[in-house]
């Protein structure tokens, strides 16, 4: 750790790293879902939803959220604004 980082406290404290690493590890331990599986699920979801609704694949976000001891699959899928049809 450099002197300046030490003095100005820019370095992330190790307890904070431990907590962040644990948050990820515990989510995967609890659900048994790997990041790769999540990515595959996301691709398939995009494919299915795109058949029905126009979405922007780049903006889709799928994540596992923790709520106490419960895990929740959260999908955030912004819908493309449909061009208004004239009557």
């Amino acid at each position: 750790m450099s002197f300046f980082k030490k003095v100005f406290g820019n370095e992330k404290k190790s307890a904070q790293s431990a907590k962040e690493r644990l948050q990820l590890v515990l989510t995967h331990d609890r659900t048994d879902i790997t990041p790769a599986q999540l990515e595959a699920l996301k691709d398939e979801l995009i494919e299915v939803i795109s058949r029905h609704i126009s979405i922007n694949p780049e903006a889709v976000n799928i994540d596992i959220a923790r709520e106490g001891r419960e895990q929740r699959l959260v999908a955030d899928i912004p819908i493309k604004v449909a061009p208004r049809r004239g009557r």
Partner: protein
Amino acid sequence: MSAKIVTITSGKGGVGKTTAIASLGIALASLGQKVVCIDGDIGLRNLDVIMGLENRIVYDIVDVVEGRCRLRQAMIRDKRVPGLFLIPAAQTRDKNALSPSDMMRLGDELRAEVDWVLIDSPAGIERGFKNSIAAADRILVLTNPEISAVRDADRVIGILEAEEKGSPDLIVNRVNYEMVQKGEMLSTEDILDLLAIDLIGVVPEDKSVLVAANQGTPVSLNKDSRAGQAFRNIAMRLTGENVPFMDLEEKGGFWNKLSKLAGGN
């Protein structure tokens, strides 16, 4: 009598389960309760040395289950505190010498004899752990502010939930206040946020724990030990008393002793 059966488990080894069982046993017995501590670590027994009763073992838990002695004969009386007993583990057998149903039967027999049965679970999540939780009414998960210990605690909590054992309570052991203040150790709040179960005790890191183990005098017998005080507090919480959590910042100086006398923690 109808004893409450309490198991302490952790997943990871070496976090302080045996120290906790010995200390809680002494503390509960000091409150006038009748207590049996059971060493559930067949093949790797240690509760006997931590309690300082290793020279008095004649029969062990496997002898009871296999009918070589009566239950009372395997209960070693701790002469320091009235009403405290140890049932040691067998040293020359393995975890398969007992089954969960053996533990249920033993638990039922002990319920009639005492107020508390405290079971020291072995590390791991295999047979020995399953045996240790089989008869439990209440389970305490013990962890340290270490990344590996917290991860293993989470795994154990998940298994207990899956087995419908109810939500366990958490003991955080070996908290170093200075390191937490510097941001170099997970705080109790961090651990509670991660594990999301109820807290029943926080035990500060304390050199007197090793000294107590060296001497075979559980740390809760030491009135000056802060870890000892933390375990005595947990024992009172187990009996249903509402004891505030210790201020870990506190040092054992003159003013603190004075404030303790004045009714602090």
